[in-house]
């Protein structure tokens, strides 16, 4: 393996990383624009549409990804890495572009949500096939002593994809204005994807097949049935199970807690306004991202296992104090209200169907320079009047920085756990079945254990704001015990078998 030269490795990393980054971008914009998509394609009040909307969220978010891992993993071990991850990129890009072009429910009726659901399923399937291909492709090109370092660039793409999606949405909103954005501007982030995919396909087309796979193929050593060899044979199945329960399950929950649950917690529990929340998330991501490479590099020196295990352990031990500190920042009961600064406004308008609308806005200021806006909207009058209450919390400057630091710490944990994992997974399996064998535990760990985090944590949080953390804490502790006892810290330098 050490004979494989590192010449051109950065071109290989660039080709793999850009494609994976775009796939993550495509996948995240749907999630970030879900409230608008729900309004355009799944209007409230129709039970069938509510079912389709929930299906688009749950099924495509986590159910389909392991299937993608199986389908494309198998293809990658049979046909080759290069063509398989070209195919996943085209599928993802095509589906994303198409979402941006689908007419709304008000134009084509029931066909609109069904098309959206199908396209979302294609996205989930493609994502399931992409990561294993990119990680395998890079690792099969690079020197054994720097595998952790080189594959860590792939690891940055998931976080940078979130950064890119939030940035494009934020900038588009700024450019076209909030009203035009929710009317038609939301389509722009989807449509832009076609340019990014075109560029990535062009770069990937120029790349050669992985040298290890090409060699195995020329010698007739590739697998005839990768699925059977990966999961039907005890010798390999027990490694797949170890990778899942001893690494990827815990890694998935740490990742989803640090990036997605933190974001949802700031938005839904702390009620922080979007103008503060989005830049805060972007800033924390930018600061933490280089550590993926730091920990990837470090794993080449001291081994993969203990970096990942320490990341999981420290996350499990500190999540509750971190979230408690986050909650305190927006807890108005513990703040002193400056009653002389309270502003009350009332607006009266009429809705399109003639109902009177009364909007009461109460802006409260606190001694630490934070503020709370309570917006009460009363539609109609008398017994049929409908009241909606919305609260928006505005952090003080110091509060913003403290919260950003608390999110940064969580993403820092993600970099410890996620930075070395591609090299770790690649080293567990032989070339002939590597794509299939590593893709499934990765996507079950991330798609299912990790993907469920926001849903389960939010559901558990109903009984107490911090109770949602029990899910990542329990799964993380479970993975730590298995990983610490059952995994080896030895780096397998020769992956050419």
């Amino acid at each position, binding site marked *: 393996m050490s004979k494989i030269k590192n010449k051109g490795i950065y071109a290989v990393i660039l080709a793999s990383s850009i494609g994976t980054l775009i796939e993550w971008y495509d996948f995240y914009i749907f999630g970030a624009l879900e409230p608008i998509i729900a309004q355009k394609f799944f209007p409230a009040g129709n039970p069938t549409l509510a079912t389709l909307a929930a299906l688009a969220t749950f099924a495509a978010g986590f159910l389909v990804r392991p299937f993608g891992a199986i389908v494309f993993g198998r293809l990658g071990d049979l046909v080759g890495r290069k063509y398989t991850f070209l195919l996943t990129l085209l599928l993802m890009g095509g589906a994303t572009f198409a979402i941006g072009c689908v007419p709304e429910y008000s134009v084509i009726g029931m066909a609109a949500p069904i098309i959206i659901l199908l396209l979302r399923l294609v996205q989930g399937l493609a994502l399931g096939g992409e990561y294993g291909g990119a990680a395998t492709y890079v690792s099969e090109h690079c020197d054994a002593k720097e595998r952790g370092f080189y594959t860590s660039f792939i690891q940055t793409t998931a976080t940078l994809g979130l950064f890119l999606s939030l940035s494009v949405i934020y900038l588009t909103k700024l450019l076209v204005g909030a009203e035009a954005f929710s009317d038609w501007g939301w389509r722009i982030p989807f449509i832009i994807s076609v340019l990014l995919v075109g560029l990535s396909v062009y770069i990937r087309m120029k790349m050669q097949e992985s040298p290890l796979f090409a060699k195995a193929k020329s010698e007739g050593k590739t697998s005839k049935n990768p699925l059977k060899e990966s999961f039907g044979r005890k010798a390999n199945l027990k490694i797949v199970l170890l990778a899942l329960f001893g690494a990827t399950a815990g890694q998935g929950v740490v990742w989803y807690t640090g990036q997605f649950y933190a974001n949802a917690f700031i938005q839904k529990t702390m009620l922080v306004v979007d103008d503060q929340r989005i830049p805060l998330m972007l800033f924390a991501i930018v600061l933490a991202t280089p550590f993926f490479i730091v920990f990837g590099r470090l794993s080449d020196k001291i081994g993969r296992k203990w970096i990942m295990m320490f990341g999981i352990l420290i996350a499990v031990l500190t999540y509750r104090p971190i979230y408690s500190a986050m909650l305190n920042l927006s807890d108005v009961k513990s703040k002193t209200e400056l009653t002389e600064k309270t502003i009350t406004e009332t607006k009266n308008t009429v809705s399109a169907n003639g109902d009177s609308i009364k909007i009461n806005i109460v802006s409260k200021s606190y001694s630490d320079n934070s503020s709370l806006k309570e917006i009460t909207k009363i539609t109609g009058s008398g017994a049929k009047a409908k009241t909606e209450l919305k609260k928006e919390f505005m952090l003080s400057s110091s509060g913003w920085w403290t919260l950003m630091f608390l999110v940064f710490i969580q993403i820092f944990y993600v970099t410890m756990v996620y930075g070395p994992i591609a090299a770790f997974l690649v080293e567990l399996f032989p070339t002939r079945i590597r794509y299939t064998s590593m893709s499934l535990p990765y996507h079950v760990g991330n798609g299912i254990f990790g993907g469920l985090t926001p849903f389960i944590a939010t559901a558990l949080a109903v009984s107490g704001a911090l109770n949602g953390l029990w899910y990542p804490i329990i799964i993380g502790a479970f993975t730590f015990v298995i990983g610490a006892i059952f995994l080896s810290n*030895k780096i397998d330098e020769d992956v050419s078998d």
Partner: protein
Amino acid sequence: MLLVHKILGLSFVVMAFFAEYFLIVYILSGTLVKDPASNQIFAATVIPVSIPIMVGLALFGWYAFKGEYLKLRDKR
């Protein structure tokens, strides 16, 4: 070390069955998700997905109980 593997292995087998049982009970009783449509979809997706995972956990526990992972570590 073999004793630790055996104890943990056995606990994973037991844990797999109990976890699946409670997951099904919780989901079907609607405790986890309140909204009816979400609840149905959640159940329809989580239950079939969680069954193979829990079978996998039980299998993992069984291999650990038999000391297979100690042999694997020695080999590596």
